[in-house]
């Protein structure tokens, strides 16, 4: 009976996504044909750019890791009924938190411990930044969308101040970021890998924990209840404010972890654009997943493929790489449209 329901759920999921994919593919193809590009050629170029070798695929995975982490964090906040636009700032504050610890580099500790400590600091940095948006909402009546947006600007200002001020490279301050970290503080990656195995394992573990916590615990059920009907939740002795705070703190911590991993695993220094827009992209991922947990790894993988593959477009077809953004946007709009039409028909 259990397997029956799983099969039914998979069938329902496929049925749900087919119209979305058709709509998105149709819209993008029409756009490309109108611009006189062949959609097939573009898919081939993007596949060549990301799927033809392990090196290229590991490049794709290095995008997948932060995107998956941000999306997991956003699942928590969306479940609680919060629009965590502040996710970008939380990535940045996580990166700063990690950098603080990595720069201190207490020599008496073995480097792996320092790196683990830096990741913890990243979670704390992002989590506190999330908590701040939550407190602004609960105590100050500031909608989390506006609070988050404001805090994003503040985080961006802080990172620029640090890079051009106290943490500037010896002699010159530049947009290219701080000094490169000592080699032993890099998250190790084997030769021919663009992604650190540790980061990959972390992201997968975080996803599994997210899935367990949100879909298979009483905590997850309470978060969902708060998101769906905060008034009724109070009658079930669930404090909506408290659960909202926990959700946005967890969300911030996971976004912060993404930022920390970018510092120690990808850039090996703090750069101004450390978040690379993965937070905002995560919002689109979770919306496309219709706020469900299980589709998120696949959708993030698809988006990572678009991002990685599109780097090839200017070289091979002389198309601007921002085409990937167009495709991502078309997917999300199609998904929102299909979900919206479906709810309207039911309602």
């Amino acid at each position, binding site marked *: 009976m*259990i397997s029956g329901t799983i099969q039914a759920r998979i069938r329902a999921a496929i049925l749900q996504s087919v119209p979305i994919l058709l709509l998105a593919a149709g819209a993008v193809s029409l756009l490309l044909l109108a611009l006189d590009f062949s959609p097939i050629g573009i898919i081939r170029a993007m596949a060549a750019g990301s799927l033809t070798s392990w090196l290229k695929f590991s490049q794709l995975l290095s995008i997948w890791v932060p995107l998956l982490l941000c999306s997991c964090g956003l699942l928590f906040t969306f479940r609680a009924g919060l629009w965590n636009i502040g996710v970008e700032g939380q990535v940045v504050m996580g990166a700063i938190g990690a950098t603080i610890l990595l720069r201190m580099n207490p020599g008496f500790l073995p480097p792996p411990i320092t790196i683990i400590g830096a990741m913890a600091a990243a979670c704390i940095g992002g989590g506190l930044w999330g908590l701040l948006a939550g407190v602004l909402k609960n105590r100050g009546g500031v909608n989390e969308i506006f609070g988050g947006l404001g805090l994003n600007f503040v985080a961006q200002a802080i990172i620029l101040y640090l890079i051009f001020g106290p943490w500037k490279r010896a002699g010159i301050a530049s947009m290219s970021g701080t000094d490169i970290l000592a080699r032993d503080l890099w998250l190790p990656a084997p030769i021919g890998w663009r992604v650190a195995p540790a980061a990959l394992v972390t992201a997968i573990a975080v996803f599994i924990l997210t899935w367990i916590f949100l879909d298979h*615990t009483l905590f997850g059920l309470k978060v969902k209840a708060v998101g769906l009907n905060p008034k009724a939740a109070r009658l079930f*002795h669930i404090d909506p404010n408290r659960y909202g705070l926990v959700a946005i703190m967890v969300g911030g911590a996971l976004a912060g972890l993404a930022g920390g991993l970018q510092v120690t695993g990808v850039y090996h220094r703090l750069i101004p654009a450390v978040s690379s827009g993965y937070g905002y992209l995560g919002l689109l991922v979770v919306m496309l997943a219709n706020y469900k947990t299980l589709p998120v790894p696949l959708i993030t993988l698809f988006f990572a493929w678009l991002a990685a593959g599109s780097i090839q477009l200017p070289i091979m077809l002389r198309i601007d790489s921002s085409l990937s953004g167009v495709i991502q946007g078309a997917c999300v709009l199609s998904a929102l449209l299909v979900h919206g039409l479906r709810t309207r028909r039911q309602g």
Partner: protein
Amino acid sequence: MIQLVNIHKTFGKVKALQGVNLHVRPGSIHGIIGENGAGKSTLMKILTGFIARTSGKILIEGREVALKTPESARRLGIGMLYQEPLDFPQLSVLDNFMAAAADGNPQRQAEIITRLGNRFGFSPQLSARQGKLTVGERQQVELMRLVRDRCRILILDEPTTGISGEQQELLFGTLRRLRDEGRAIILVSHKLAEIHSLCDRVTILRHGKPAGEQEKPFDEEQLLQAMFATLPARSSRPPGRTPGRPILTMEEVSTRAGRVGLDRITITILEGEIVGLAGLDGSGQSIFLQMAYGLLSPEQGRVRLAATGRDEMARVFLPADRLGKGLIAGLTVREHQLLAGAAPFFIHGGCGRAETEKAIDTFSIIGSPDTMAEGLSGGNQQRLLLSLIPPEARLILLEHPTRGLDLQSGRWTWQYLRSRLPDNGAIIFASPELDEIMEQADRVLVFYNGGIILDRPTNQTSYQEVSRAITGRV
């Protein structure tokens, strides 16, 4: 001036109005009274063009009119003053006054509002923000706007709810003046004092049907009898329990929440009591229940509960808006059971399934453990809420406990509530049905304008006394 002939209105199967006739003469104030659900608001919405009648004729000055949209009502000179002012709180008084004015010249409009203000004794502050004004002042701005737009038929819905005594005097004076100038005024009210001092004629509605009409001077006893259906023979109500120690005490509790707030409520509810809260909708019953549950805290005064080991679990509240405030749309029946019961931290698909199936069986809920709350019918939603009451609950608070239930489900609900109430527990319920209160409650509290104006054991009061109290007469 305006004449309604044999008006019917049905919403699906529900007959909201059945054969209502009304004749309002120019230069008169015509009252419309009736209890909750008598059809007063439906009638007003038809007159203002918000909803279309199912059948019947409307004549204005002898000519038949269609009256299908609010715009056509406005053009015919029908204006309405709503209970909740329909204005733009962010804009200034002058901007609000200018809204929908044919002439948009601020200077001329300022002159007009000042002149009207002088005439009626209002003192509008043109640059003040509308939202900062009291309900009474907002009402004055609306009233002046209607007069400016040459409204000939003026409808007022419970205009004295939430305004001060002084503002009421001003309003009454204005209404009398407008009447003497030849306008037709329709006053919807449940306050007999108001009807007495203002109206020339009154029509009583009951359950959507006309239940009588009277010329001034009114016979109050007859009005009351026409408003409320006669009490059915006292049913076989189980004997009340012996009241025990206090379970809930309120001392001088006041708040401004809700339409009328609460006004210095002092009351003690005892263990073993079943207390019914009567009154027109929005007279304070709902705020009282929310206060007793702890959803609201008093601005003044104190709420005390009997000390128990696990205070938090000892109270439950079943709100009238079941899907909006009591249940969680998007969660299944089983998930509701998990939230209400003692669920383990880790949940799998089988958790709580057996218990839920048992509850579905016991409470005859039509649905499965995986049915979403919004997929249940109103009656089944109420059964689900009842099934979620924890066994240790001692204070059970309910709003409209049998709304939307058929007779049998209603009876079953009360049997269940009585059977599961512990000796040291109490039930407090608000109901728009006086029958239900007289039948089920040991004690009745009548709310009027945010205060309790009558507090009696049900076997020491009469239907008549309670219905008088609902209209503000004790």
